[in-house]
C-alpha cells in the first residue's frame, strides 16, 4: 500500500464512519437484540424474564399466527401480481411520446408520493357504506349488489381493498422501473420481428417480454421485500386486516402486551426477508 492509497483509505473510513456508527447502533444492533428479546418475557416497561423457547412455542401453536401468514400470502400475491401487471401496462401505454405526457406522468406518480395518512381517508370515503361512490355505483347504478355493504368493515373483503390500494399506490414505481428498460430496447429488434411476420402481439411476446424478463423479476422481488413489512398502508386503511406486521404490532403495543412474542414473530420474519434481500443483492444489484 502506497502512502497515497493509505491516505485515501483513511479518508474513506473517516467519511463513512458516522453512517456506520448510526446504522450499526440503530439497525444492526437492534436486529440482534431482537433475537435476544425473543427468548424473554418482555414487559412494556423493559422488565424481562428468561423463558427460553416459550415464545416460539406459543407462536407456533397460535392459530392467529397461521391466519396472519395466510393473509400476508394473499396480500403479497395480490399486490405483486397486480402491481407488476399494471406497471407493465402503464409502461407500454406511455412508452412513446405524445402531447401532455409530462402531465399524465405527474398525475400517475402522485399516489406514490402522497402521504398514506391523507389518502387513506379518501379511500375510506370512497368505500363508505352510506356516502361512498363505490356502493352507489354497484348498488344504485349497476345493480350488481343487492344492498350497500361495508367493504372495509369486513376483514375478508377489506383485504382486497387493501390490495387494490397498494396496487394504486405502488404501480408507479413498477412503471418507472419497467419504462427505463423498455425505452432501451432497440427499434431494430422490432423491425426484424416485423419482417419475420410477427404482429403486435407476437412482437410483444417475442421481443418485449424476453427483454423485460430481468426487470420484471426485479419488480417482483422488490415488491415482495417491501410488502412483507408493509405496515401503514394496511393498518391505517383497514386495521382489521391482520397481515404479519399488524399482527406483530398488536402483540407488541395493544391489548395484552407481549413484546417477547412480537420479537419472536419479527425474528422469523427477518429470516424470510433476509432470503429475499440476499437474492436481490446477489442476482440483481450491481453495486
Amino acid at each position, binding site marked *: 500500500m502506497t502512502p497515497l492509497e493509505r491516505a*485515501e483509505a483513511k479518508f*474513506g473510513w473517516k*467519511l*463513512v464512519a458516522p*453512517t*456506520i456508527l*448510526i*446504522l450499526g447502533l*440503530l*439497525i444492526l444492533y437492534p436486529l440482534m437484540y431482537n433475537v435476544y428479546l425473543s427468548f424473554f418475557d*418482555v414487559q412494556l416497561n423493559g422488565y424481562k424474564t428468561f423463558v427460553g423457547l416459550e415464545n416460539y412455542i406459543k407462536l407456533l401453536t397460535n392459530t392467529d399466527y397461521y391466519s396472519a401468514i395466510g393473509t400476508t400470502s394473499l396480500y403479497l400475491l395480490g399486490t405483486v401480481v397486480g402491481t407488476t401487471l399494471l406497471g407493465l401496462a*402503464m409502461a407500454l*401505454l406511455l412508452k412513446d411520446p405524445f402531447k401532455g405526457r409530462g402531465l*399524465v*406522468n*405527474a*398525475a*400517475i*406518480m*402522485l399516489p406514490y*408520493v*402522497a*402521504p*398514506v*395518512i*391523507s*389518502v387513506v*381517508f*379518501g379511500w375510506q370515503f*370512497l368505500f363508505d357504506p352510506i*356516502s361512498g361512490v363505490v356502493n*352507489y*355505483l354497484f348498488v344504485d347504478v349497476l345493480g350488481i349488489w343487492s344492498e350497500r355493504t361495508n367493504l372495509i368493515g369486513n376483514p375478508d373483503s377489506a383485504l382486497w381493498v387493501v390490495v387494490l390500494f397498494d396496487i*394504486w399506490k405502488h404501480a408507479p*414505481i413498477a412503471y*418507472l*422501473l419497467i*419504462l*427505463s428498460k423498455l425505452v432501451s430496447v432497440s427499434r431494430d429488434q422490432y423491425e426484424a420481428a416485423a419482417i419475420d411476420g410477427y404482429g*403486435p402481439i407476437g*412482437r410483444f411476446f417475442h421481443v418485449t417480454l424476453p427483454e423485460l424478463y430481468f426487470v420484471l423479476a426485479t419488480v417482483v422481488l422488490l415488491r415482495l421485500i417491501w410488502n*412483507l*413489512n408493509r*405496515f*401503514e398502508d394496511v393498518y*391505517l386503511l383497514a386495521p382489521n386486516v391482520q397481515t404479519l*406486521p399488524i399482527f406483530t*404490532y398488536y402483540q*407488541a403495543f395493544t391489548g395484552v402486551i407481549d*413484546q417477547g412474542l*412480537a*420479537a419472536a414473530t*419479527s425474528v422469523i*420474519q*427477518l429470516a424470510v*426477508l433476509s432470503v429475499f*434481500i440476499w437474492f436481490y*443483492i446477489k442476482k440483481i*444489484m450491481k*453495486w
Partner: protein
Amino acid sequence: MLGKRTLTGRIGFALAILLLVSFSLLPFAQILSTSLKHQYDWGNPSLIPQTINLDAYKELLGLTEAKKVEIPAAIQKILNNPKLPKDKKEAIAAKYTSNENLFPFGKYMLNSVIFSVGAATFSLIFSVMGAYSISRLRFKGQVVIQRSVLFVYMVGGVLLMVPLYQMAMNIGLASSLWGSAFCLFLIYIVQTLPVGMYMLGNYFRGIPFALEEAAMMDGCSRKEAIIKVVLPLSLPMLATVFIYCFIIGWNEYLFASVFLKQYPEFHTLPLALQELFVSKNAIWDRIMAASMLTLAPIVICFLFASRFMKGGKTDGGVKG
C-alpha cells in the same frame, strides 16, 4: 405498437389514458370534494359540491374563534367542594374548559416540519459523506459496507419497533417527552440515510473523476475538491435526496405512534390525523381538509423533484 395511426387506435389510446389518470386521481378528487362539501351534500355522488363550504379549512387554520365551553353544573358542584385540593380542581376544570373540538392543526404541522426537515438535513449531510466514500474512494471493506447499507435499507421498520422501543426504555429515553422525541428524530435519520446514500452513490459515480483531479492539480485538497466541484455539480440530486428524505419523515406513522402517542403536544400530522379519525370528533369535511393540507406540501415538493426523477433515473433505489 398500439396501432396509433388508425382512428380507433387513437380513441382507444385516449380512453386508456383517461381511465388510468382517473384511477390515479379519483381518491384525491374525492378528498378535495368532500373537504369542500356541506354535511347534507356528502351522500351526493357528484364530485362537485352544491355550495362551497370553507369552514373546515378556516377551522383548521385557526381563522374561526374558538367556542367557549360551559362547565356542566355537576362538575361545578365538585369544583365548589372546599375539601378538594387546589391542583386537582385545576386539573378537572382544565379538562372541561379545554375546547376538545379544537384540533391544533398548525402545531401538528410545525411538529411534522421540525421532525422531517431536521432529520432530512442530518441525513443529507451523512449521506453525502458516506456516498462519496463508498462510490469514489478505494479501501478495504468497501463492498461489505455497500451491501450492508443496502441490506439495512430494506429492513422494514416493523422488524425494529420492539427492539428500538426496548433499547430506548433501557436507557430511560422512552419515559420522558424529550427523550422520546430525540429517539424519533434519530430513527428518522436512520430510516432515510440508506436511501440517501444509495441515490447519491449512484449519482457521484456518474461525475467524471477528471473534474476533481483538475481541481486537485490546481491545489485544492480532496475535501475542497468535493466542496467546490462535486457538490455544486450534484445540486439537483442533493435537492432530490433532501426532498425524498423529507417525504419519508413527513409520511411516517409507525414510530411516531410507538414513541409519541402519549405526548399529544408532540404529535406529528399522521399521528394527529389518525387520532382525530378514531375520536368522536371525526367529521368528514374536517378530516378531508386536514388530509388536503397534509398533502399540499408533498405535492409541491414532488412537482419540484419530479423534474429530476423522470425516466427511472433513481434506478430502483426508491423506497416503497
